[in-house]
């Protein structure tokens, strides 16, 4: 029985992997494109969740990295005249570099000021790109080097890369949060004064999270615009990128790794239901999803995941640290303080 149980996660993973590899042969082109979009959105939402849910940094300017990643890829691919997927690693590198510089002065701002400061930075980059004729100005640029890829393979490759990015985002944030840096981030989030007093470097941990989130959003943005073969400042630096990330994370459950997964499923289900089934315009689905997010913040600030995790078998990706047995006995009752429970939006950690 225990042997079966130990094998179960691996067999599920193997089946899932096989399904992902085979998906392009099983599905139509539309469904494939839809899934790619959802995967990329999941990766971006995990990045935003890493910032807002763990590092205490609410960035309203995360779209700047989506756009920079896309422009970096287009520019590199066109000027080197190679297929876009070969220069894909340049996009996250560019974004990480920019984020490292931006963090130096943005980290002087706290909370809401950081949120809008990053937004202003995004507007500045968007305006600068709109004014630069070499990058296509306001009209944007196409991706002629896409012809270097066999058109039959463009859609499946985009799908596989998107799926790999989504997996890497989930597993990567999981690994990061289980590491020393992650523990540092969570102690800062739960009580920054106590964390600083035991020697946690608040600035350094946040810096690492910010750079990683920028790289992740840049990578996802680059793939997203490769799929459309066209990029323009109005789409690349659209605040609706961060609106989507925020809505997904809030509905699913901020400060949990499973939350964005649940959120992406709800976001895209609602979007398809409202736009395809009821035939509503894009504006109405944003109104609907925005309202759902408002209701969630008011009445269920921890999102949907804490409500459904019980029936689904508890936390799948727990980053909670258990104290060693000896410490548990010594600490007796107050061991609850060691839990790295998500602070959520409202309640104090001791509420759970």
């Amino acid at each position, binding site marked *: 029985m225990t042997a079966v149980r130990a094998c179960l996660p691996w067999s599920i993973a193997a089946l899932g992997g096989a399904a992902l590899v085979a998906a392009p042969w099983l599905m139509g082109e539309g469904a494939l494109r839809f899934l790619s979009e959802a995967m990329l959105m999941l990766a971006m939402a995990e990045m935003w969740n890493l910032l807002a849910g763990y590092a205490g940094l609410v960035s309203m300017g995360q779209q700047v990295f989506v756009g920079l990643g896309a422009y970096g890829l287009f520019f590199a691919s066109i000027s080197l005249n190679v297929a876009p997927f070969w220069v894909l690693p340049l996009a996250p590198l560019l974004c990480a570099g920019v984020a490292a510089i931006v963090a130096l002065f943005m980290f002087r701002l706290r909370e809401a000021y950081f949120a*809008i400061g990053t937004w*202003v930075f995004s507007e*500045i980059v968007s305006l600068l790109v709109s*004014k630069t004729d070499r990058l296509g100005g306001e009209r944007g640029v196409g991706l002629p080097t896409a012809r270097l890829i066999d058109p039959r393979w463009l859609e499946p490759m985009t799908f596989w890369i998107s799926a790999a990015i989504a997996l890497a985002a989930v597993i990567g944030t999981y690994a990061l949060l289980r590491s020393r840096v992650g523990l540092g981030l969570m102690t800062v989030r739960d009580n920054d004064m106590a964390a600083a007093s035991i020697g946690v470097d608040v600035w350094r941990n946040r810096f690492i999270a910010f750079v990683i989130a920028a790289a992740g959003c840049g990578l996802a943005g680059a793939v997203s615009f490769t799929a459309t073969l066209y990029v323009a400042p109005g789409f690349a630096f659209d*605040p609706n990128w961060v609106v989507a990330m925020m809505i997904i994370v809030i509905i699913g459950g901020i400060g949990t790794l499973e939350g964005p997964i649940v959120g992406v499923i709800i976001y895209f289900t609602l979007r398809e239901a409202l736009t395809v089934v009821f035939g509503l315009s894009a504006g109405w689905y944003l*109104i609907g999803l*925005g*309202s759902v997010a*408002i209701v969630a913040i008011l009445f269920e600030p921890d999102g949907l995941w804490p409500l459904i995790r019980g029936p689904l078998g508890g936390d799948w990706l727990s980053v909670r640290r258990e104290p060693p047995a000896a410490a548990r006995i010594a600490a007796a009752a107050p061991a609850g303080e060691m839990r790295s429970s998500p602070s959520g939006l409202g309640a104090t950690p001791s509420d759970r």
Partner: protein
Amino acid sequence: MIWVETIVNGILYGGLYGLLGVGLALIVGVMRVVNLSHGEFIVLSAFMGVSLVGVFPWLHPLALILPVAAIAFGLGMALQAVLINRVVTRPDPFAAILLTFGVAVVMRNLMVEVYGADLRHLQAGRLAQASTGIGGLQVGVLPLLILGLSVALFTALQLLLTRTRFGRIVRATADNRDVVRLMGVNPGRVYNLVMGLSLALASVAGMLLAIRASFSPYSGVERLLVAFEVVVLGGLGTFWGAMLGGITLGVAELVGLRLDPNAGPLYAHLLFLVGVLLRPNGLFRVRT
């Protein structure tokens, strides 16, 4: 001479920017909440102005400022009472940011659906073109009038907060919302009034800006960013600082446009970033 004129126009324009920001500075000072739907309310009041002009075509748009401000006051009270008061006491500072951001998303898209995405403009008739010569400079009458109105509103706000009983209650609530309860003050109700006041001020700025520049449902983002930059540059929670911050941004924007005609608000944004880099506590911070 052209530079002097640009700077004078920047100052006049900046007075309006100060008015965009002062409502935000008020709620930041009193409840330490940044209302991310501030820009959307500015645009909404401009749309209300356009609708009212359609109903009462014989009235001058400037005469419609009062009814629009009254509606905005009511909307502000409702927003605070129904939504923001529920999260303002939570220890997590992000709840209010995310909540008001959600409100902004819903409002922006509702305005797109109701009014359409086209650029609009509020017509002020002959007044918009009239100009007068002061010391050899040609200055528009309307911008002068707008600056005068801004200064009057700033003064009124200052007097309201420093000289009246209501102002004393607001300042006490800002200092300590738990202690004022002991004096029989309901902080939630004070917040309702302050948010009403904040959005009423925003609506005046929104109407005046709609006369000077065209707008669409998507302009809210830009208005919010300007308002926020005014608050930060001016020093958080100070009113005359907000006025100076607005004037600085107005001059930066018009000088920037003179140097580089398709720059838009680029130079104002850059000035803000440099300002934050050099002085994170604001350019004109005076401790009150």
